[in-house]
């Protein structure tokens, strides 16, 4: 980065950043969607008209109506309530995975970049190795060993998602290590732990947060996908992918709502997260603007 662009970036401070973010309508839309879904997840029990697992044999496979906004499934369970509860499952799994993978990736990436040398080499080769396996395969292997379920799902996605964060954090740390203020802080006697915490971490954080937001969407997609093929969340928990999998056989006989609504929820959530992530990236890093 040349000196001029750096100054330019530095000048984009709080107020300016807010302006960029608001001027990008799509990112505001994204933020709103995400906010709404988080609200739905938190307020789930209040919003759901009927408990999600209440079986009612008098209303099996009803199409969407006043009584059941999204229709009912083969046990007569209310799909609207199930989708609302599905938001809780998906978002909480997503949060857990993203928080832990961000922390893990941040810690390993910054330390690896800061130490450099052979340790850094070794860690990065290991990261490459992990990245060579698609997350679906990792999940399949773990599901075979541990059996399906939320725990397996979370571990599988952690294994395949911290590496991206680690790479970004390492790259940023490597360039920050050369920066003037790190040298200057060493000049006034700062210890490496001090420099890492006060000067490197605050600068590594923004790009890492952007990538975490984007990978949040991926985690939700993967959660749904793995539950769909039967190695993720297990019944009777309400989970979007699982609801689709349960409704799958009815698509060829015309009961579209069993598949449509949970999928729509997935798409909206992921879209919201992607738009939000893109917006954040524009604020923090004009270089990567697409």
């Amino acid at each position, binding site marked *: 980065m040349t000196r001029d662009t750096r100054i330019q970036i*530095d000048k984009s401070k709080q107020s300016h950043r807010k302006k960029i973010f608001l001027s990008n309508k799509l990112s505001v839309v994204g933020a709103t969607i995400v906010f709404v879904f988080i609200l739905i997840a938190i307020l789930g029990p209040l919003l759901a008209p009927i408990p999600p697992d209440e079986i009612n044999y008098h209303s099996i496979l009803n199409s969407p109506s006043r009584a059941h906004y999204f229709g009912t499934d083969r046990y007569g369970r209310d799909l609207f309530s199930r989708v609302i509860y599905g938001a809780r499952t998906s978002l909480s799994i997503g949060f857990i995975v993203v928080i832990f993978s961000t922390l893990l990736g941040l810690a390993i990436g910054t330390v690896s970049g800061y130490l450099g040398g052979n340790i850094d080499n070794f860690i990065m080769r290991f990261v490459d190795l992990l990245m060579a396996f698609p997350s679906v395969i990792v999940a399949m292997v773990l599901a075979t060993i541990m059996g399906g379920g939320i725990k397996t799902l979370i571990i599988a996605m952690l294994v395949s998602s911290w590496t991206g964060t680690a790479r970004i954090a390492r790259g940023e740390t490597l360039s920050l290590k050369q920066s*003037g*203020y790190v040298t200057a802080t060493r000049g006034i*006697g*700062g210890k490496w732990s001090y420099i890492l915490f006060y000067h490197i971490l605050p600068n590594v954080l923004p790009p890492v947060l952007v990538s975490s937001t984007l990978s949040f969407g991926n985690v939700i997609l993967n959660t749904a996908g793995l539950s769909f093929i039967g190695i993720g969340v297990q019944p009777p928990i309400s989970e979007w992918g699982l609801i689709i999998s349960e409704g799958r056989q009815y698509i060829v006989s015309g009961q579209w709502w069993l598949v449509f609504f949970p999928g729509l929820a997935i798409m909206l959530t992921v879209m919201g997260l992607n738009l939000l992530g893109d917006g954040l990236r524009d604020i923090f890093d004009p270089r990567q603007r697409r």
Partner: protein
Amino acid sequence: MVKPILSTCKLKKLFPVGRGVWNKPKAYVNALDKVDLDIMGCTTFGLLGESGCGKTTLAQLITRLQEPTSGTIWYKGHDITKMKGRDLRENRIYSQIQIVFQNPAEVLSPRRTIDFLLKEPLKINKVYEKEIEIEQKIEELLDKVNLRPELLTRFPHQLSGGQQQRICIARALSLNPDFIVLDEPTSALDVSVQAKILNLLVELQQKERLTYLLVTHDIRVAEYICTDIAVMYLGEIVEILKAEEFRQNAKHPYSKLLIESANTECEEKDFDLKVLDDPPSPINLPKGCRFQARCPVSIPICSTIHPELKKISDGTKCRCHRVTDN
């Protein structure tokens, strides 16, 4: 005889280039080659040379930001070369030897307020116990560098280049150092601001009894505030003399070239040796005199024998076969 406050003995720094099998370097850059220096207390010692000659490396070695490959640095009679991070902190070497960098915008972390940045050295070195003492010290420092306390709440990018550099100077002063390395302190600034910063530095030197090591490529800056000037070329010192004698009495052909190009320079910009090629590669050093390839007055011996730094007269040393005493 007065002892120097800081001296270096055969200071050498090699940088590895390229990595072969098992991370073994393929070659080395001779950034600094057996440099001997003696800097007296309360003087300003100037290091002059074009970019890439090793002057910044020397500055970073003296402030212990980089490890020398070999050689020793003596500070007030102590060998500080062997000291590692903790020893340096315990013996307060970090506090006593401070550095002001070339580009203040890069030195001040963009995400921190001026207040944080000024307090940082005091807090890291645990100089004071009470917050109020720190506040007082900050006020005093701002006064020293002629800045108003309103700036404290601002971020570095909201300050002008001159103000930023004043903050850097205040940060260096906050630990009450005896020795400050000034690494091109004015070259990133506008010309109008340069003089003000230099005057401030001179003023502070008198008030605080400081010793400066000034690294610069600008002859006028060196002449303006230095007592002694050492000219560097390709990692070694080619000439040392008193600053007031520099323009008239510099003997080394390279020094003369610098003076000449400073004189003919009509616009304000970094001087470059227009008439000549780039300096030879510091990886494959030429045999004999390092300046020989570009030297206008070279003789056959220059390409075979590497000249020593000879004493010409009191306070004057020169590394050239063509220059002898008298």
